[in-house]
């Protein structure tokens, strides 16, 4: 199982119409766009013939070289030189060959690795076999990373492609793999619009997931709710502003009491009438740790001014309300 059998080939000229280009049994890449290859083949011809396998219905299946076949087709070729596998090759052998062929000239990206893991898994006799094959096939040896990449393959193709387009981060996609396709696609649509950083994507996923559990709703229902839609529809907001507002909206829904306390704190802070030189921050989460007071000054005159601000602050009843918020 772990040794790739020596494959034998016959060099043939095959009619392109006999190749089933929709058979993606051995395809790893989601990209089939042949544009870059078209020019090269037009200029110098097909240097490296694709590898094909003849199926029982006599049509040819592509094992290696999807984009080469598509490029030749785009050039209007009717026939193509190919290396046709001789004898009986199993699907597992063909997949391994495809992976090794891709690996021979470049590193597989995470989506291709995920495709490989997804396609190989059902063909292997034991759970750990795939991990044992990792080093040969160029998959990560670290078990955690391997599992993460494997989880990617459960997601809809659009989201997998979204990883390559950097719409959604790899770590966020791992989180999304726990959701239904409908829910995962709802997140993906939001991320397409907002283009959030990896941490913010993960924050949104966690917030929505937990709100869904608290309110017994589907994540998609929350993501398509009026509150979110209204923010996304506001033409006067730029993408970053929309992202901030969506996150604030979700946080308020997930932590209503905390958000209310933060609002009250901001209101009382305004009542203190501090200026840009004196700034107060609440203790984290109002849990009883120290508050922070930051003051900037240049010389004695400035210092006296700040002291006056602090004196006024001490006499302001809003300060007691800030310091004892749960009285």
């Amino acid at each position, binding site marked *: 199982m772990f040794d790739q059998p020596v494959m034998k080939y016959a060099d043939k000229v095959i009619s392109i119409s006999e190749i089933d280009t929709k058979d993606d049994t051995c395809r790893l890449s989601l990209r089939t766009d042949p544009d870059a290859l078209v020019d090269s083949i037009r200029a110098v011809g097909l240097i490296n013939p694709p590898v094909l396998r003849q199926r029982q219905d006599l049509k040819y299946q592509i094992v290696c070289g999807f984009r080469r076949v598509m490029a030749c087709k785009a050039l209007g070729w009717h026939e193509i030189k190919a290396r046709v596998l001789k004898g009986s090759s199993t699907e597992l052998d063909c997949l391994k060959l495809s992976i090794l062929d891709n690996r021979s000239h470049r590193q597989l990206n995470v989506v291709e690795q995920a495709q490989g893991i997804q396609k190989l898994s059902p063909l292997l006799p034991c759970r750990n076999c795939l991990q044992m094959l990792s080093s040969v096939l160029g998959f990560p040896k670290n078990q955690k990373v391997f599992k993460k990449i494997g989880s990617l393959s459960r997601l809809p193709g659009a989201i997998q492609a979204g990883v390559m387009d950097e719409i959604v981060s790899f770590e966020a996609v791992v989180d999304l793999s726990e959701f239904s396709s409908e829910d995962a696609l709802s997140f993906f649509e939001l991320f397409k619009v907002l283009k959030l950083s990896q941490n913010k994507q993960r924050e949104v996923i966690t917030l929505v997931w*937990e709100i869904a*559990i*608290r309110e017994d709703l589907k994540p998609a229902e929350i993501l398509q709710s009026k509150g979110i839609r209204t923010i996304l529809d506001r033409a006067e907001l730029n993408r970053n502003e929309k992202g901030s507002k969506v996150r604030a909206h979700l946080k308020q829904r997930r*932590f*209503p*009491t*905390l958000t209310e*306390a933060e609002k009250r704190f901001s209101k009382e802070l305004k009542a203190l009438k501090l200026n840009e030189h004196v700034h107060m921050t609440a203790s*984290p*989460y*109002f*849990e*009883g*740790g120290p508050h922070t007071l930051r003051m900037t000054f240049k010389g004695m005159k400035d210092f006296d001014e700040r002291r006056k601000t602090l004196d006024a602050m001490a006499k302001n009843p809003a300060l007691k309300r800030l310091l*004892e*918020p*749960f*009285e």
Partner: protein
Amino acid sequence: MISRLYIDEAVKHHPAVGTVQQSLPAVPVSVVPDAAKVYEVLTAMQDPIAAGKRVLFLTRNKGPFLRKCPGTKSYICCGYQILHIGTYCTMDCAYCILQAYFHPPVLQYFVNQERLFKELDDLVRSGRPPFHRIGTGEFTDSLIWEPWTELSSALVPYFAQQDRVVLELKTKTTAVENLRGLEHNRKTIVAWSLNSPAIIRSEERGTASMRARLRAAAQCEAWGYPLAFHFDPLILYEGWEKDYRRLVRELFASVSAQNIVWISLGSFRFMPSLKPIIRKRFQKSRIIYGEFIPGLDGKMRYFKPLRIELYRKMAAWIRELAPDVMLYFCMEDQEVWEQALGFVPEDRGGLSRMLDESAARHCGVVV
């Protein structure tokens, strides 16, 4: 149910090992060189946390048997001491910190109790500080060991002979039969963790029902034992007010308030590392999705005004039926005490002193 008994090579000839083996005659036995072998077996299992509840490892305690409760400076601690008899538990509560505390958690019992009693002798004789509250229910449930060991039969009479220390046996079981007829001299407090039937059903796998716990408590009261109760972890969920109020009523309908040494209240708090464990092992559990914030000790806690409301109501319901009972909070700060009970422990000599005095009143110890 124990499916395998592991015996540490170093204790295989200890008499306590024979006692345990006799009580588990059908259970296969493996003698192992050390704990690492047991960990290795458990770690390879699908759910090591669950697997650790089904194997019993008999070994020796290489560290001290008496330890200080791991309280933190940020919150007011009760000054309890732990008698470290073993680790982990056969019951399976979603919120149990022991799932994340040991790596991996293993049901292990320390048989070298000669040293345990030596440490207790030293403590009783030392006279400093003058009084101690000791419990076995911190790293395990105090009474799960009853079917296999003679621990209570040894501990309870030991504490009965002195008047400087009380022992608290804290449990969620009804395994009190071995306590019948023991000479206790009211120096052993039998305590139950209580929660609403809804929480017991959804979050406490394999524990006794609330009514069964209260029946066992009433039985212990009838045998003359002083009692204690711990409403911990209190959990906010839809219907908590109605459920917890009913629980308080049932408690005082079952036992006499005058025989209760103390009642503690503690809201659900957890180390962040416990969250993914609960999510994975208790997929229907909703307890981690409350309004939690990181506390000053790094544990996640309900946002403070929610805790204050919860405690205020619980305290009012308890006070209504038992105005004089010693009520305290487990790991809360002064603001919560002030807001929920109207005073801070410092005003009454500190929490340790308040608890010591209650023990003196109920257990006849010298404070």
